[in-house]
């Protein structure tokens, strides 16, 4: 490759100049793409640093064991919101996971033709529905019917959000299971449901669990649909038909007040929530990698 400045003018000079320009453009675009990656990671670093630095200073024993105090009184914690988030996620999982896995089984094992195509399509489209719309729909049905905000309504809203995620990962994972396994099981005389449950599902379990955990991590941080389904509460949770506190809603309400104290608690809540979400999704990835590695080996 020619390098350096050639003779000015003339055929040779022009060609060298052009090659040089091409190389410079090549390098520049390479640098720009690295830069884009770095720029995208700056907010990640900033969020992690701020949340851990500011959050740690708010976290104490009281944070995990005490109820929130009225504005102006020092101390107080978010024990009810931590428990509330767990209850909401548990409720949503109890509804969303079984239905999602069954629907995934339908798509992978029985689904042929137009209905399967429709369900698959709706599933993909559903993941793009804004979560606040789900909140409105649950408000319009369950909250209006029960005439009150409740943990159940919140759980249903979150379940609807996790449903398509669970369905699609289940389908994808089941499709990876080789057909020979199914045939072997059927040839031994096992009915189809037995084949699916104890052979196919079992060998895809790792991947499905990964998908489920990612869905759980996703809904644990959802706020918008809870604003008018579960709402919030300053007290311990007393029943599934009552409103219930959750970390995301607390972060939102505390961050938008003008009080320093509450801001501090919001950072603390954000740290707990982020830890919950990130640990779950990282664990899911590790589990997934191990499962898929095992399957291949």
């Amino acid at each position, binding site marked *: 490759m020619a390098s350096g400045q050639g003779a000015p003018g003339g055929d040779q000079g022009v060609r060298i100049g052009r090659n040089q320009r091409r190389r410079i453009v090549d390098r520049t675009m390479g640098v720009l793409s690295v830069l884009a990656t770095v720029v995208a990671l700056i907010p990640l670093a900033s969020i992690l640093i701020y949340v851990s630095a500011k959050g740690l200073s708010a976290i104490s024993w009281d944070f995990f064991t005490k109820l929130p105090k009225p504005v102006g009184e020092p101390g107080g914690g978010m024990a009810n919101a931590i428990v509330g988030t767990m209850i909401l996620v548990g409720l949503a999982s109890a509804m969303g996971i079984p239905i999602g896995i069954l629907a995934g089984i339908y798509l992978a094992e029985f689904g042929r033709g137009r209905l399967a195509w429709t369900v698959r399509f709706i599933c993909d489209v559903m993941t*793009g529905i804004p979560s606040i719309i789900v909140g409105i729909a649950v408000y319009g049905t369950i909250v209006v019917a029960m005439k009150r905000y409740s943990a159940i309504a919140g759980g249903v809203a979150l379940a609807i959000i996790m449903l398509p995620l669970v369905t699609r990962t289940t389908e994808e994972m089941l499709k990876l299971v080789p057909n020979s396994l199914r045939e072997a099981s059927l040839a031994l005389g096992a009915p189809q449901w037995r084949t699916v449950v104890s052979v196919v599902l079992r060998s895809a379990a790792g991947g499905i669990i990964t998908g489920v955990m990612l869905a759980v991590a996703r809904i644990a941080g959802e706020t918008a649909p809870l604003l008018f389904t579960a709402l919030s509460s300053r007290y311990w949770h007393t029943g599934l038909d009552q409103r219930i506190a959750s970390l995301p809603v607390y972060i939102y309400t505390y961050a938008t007040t003008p009080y320093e104290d509450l801001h501090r608690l919001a950072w603390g809540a954000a740290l707990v929530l982020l830890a919950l979400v990130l640990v779950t999704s990282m664990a899911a990835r590790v589990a997934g990698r191990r499962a898929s590695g095992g399957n291949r080996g």
Partner: protein
Amino acid sequence: MEKKSYKAWLEGDIAFRGFAYLAALSLVGVVLAILWVLVEGAQLTFTKFGPGFALGSRWDPVHGVFGALPLVYGTVVSSLIALAIALPLSLGIAIYLTQLAPHWLRGPVSFLVELLAAIPSVVYGLWGVFVLVPWVRSSVEPVLGSALGFLPLFKGAPYGFGMLAAGIILAIMITPTISAVSREVLLVVPRSQQEAMLALGATRWETIRMVVLPYGRSGILGAAILGLGRALGETMAVTMVIGNRPQIFPSLFELAQTIASIIANEFSEAFNDLHLSALVAAGLILFVITLLLNIMARLLVWRVARVPQGVTRE
């Protein structure tokens, strides 16, 4: 005896099949139910204001006048700002991860970018209020204002809160989506085509520009639309930084409002049926827009990322 067990065998299968079928149908049912609730709830508004609801520019709950134009404007403009920032960034990331990065770095970097998608929206909002907004107020807006202040887009006092902050935070939130989908699309570009181009003496960038990007064009477009759909419906982070003022201003430094943010703000405090119905009607508009965008994006991405994969598998 044998007949009986065969019957049980069959019944088990039929029941199992039935359950799976019902579960799949429930997904369709949920989407239809959502649509029905929205249409039902929006009826009062549409009978009162007609289609003019979407074009009215005054949102005034106190006087019972509801026009959704400022919300639609805020939603669309904030999302377009986000797309304008996120698309080049995401393409850069996708190109870096598929073409340039050393192999050992690809996994960790894409993991970090995906981590951005795992952070809850409300945490973005919190960070936005206390970190991003002050930065926008003290650095971004003064600089933009003095350099481009002759444009109406960049005029006005730097509040920090407002359309620009919302656009930036949305850009951060949709970057993982766009970059992940474009990465998948770029991964299926046939190796042989790139090698042919390189063998002809093209530089890496020329190969990317003339082979890789054109091959993935419709998939990248799909990724961008998918990201746009996410941005349109994003609620909490936007609600916390956009300022919540349902009016149309030409300047990006001004406070604004989106459909999602006004619902988050006013829904639980709506003081009469009409107000509530107007919010549901706005939600219906958002639902329809995001649904259409999603359908479009899926079709585009499917065409690119699925067909070649199927071909290589066979």
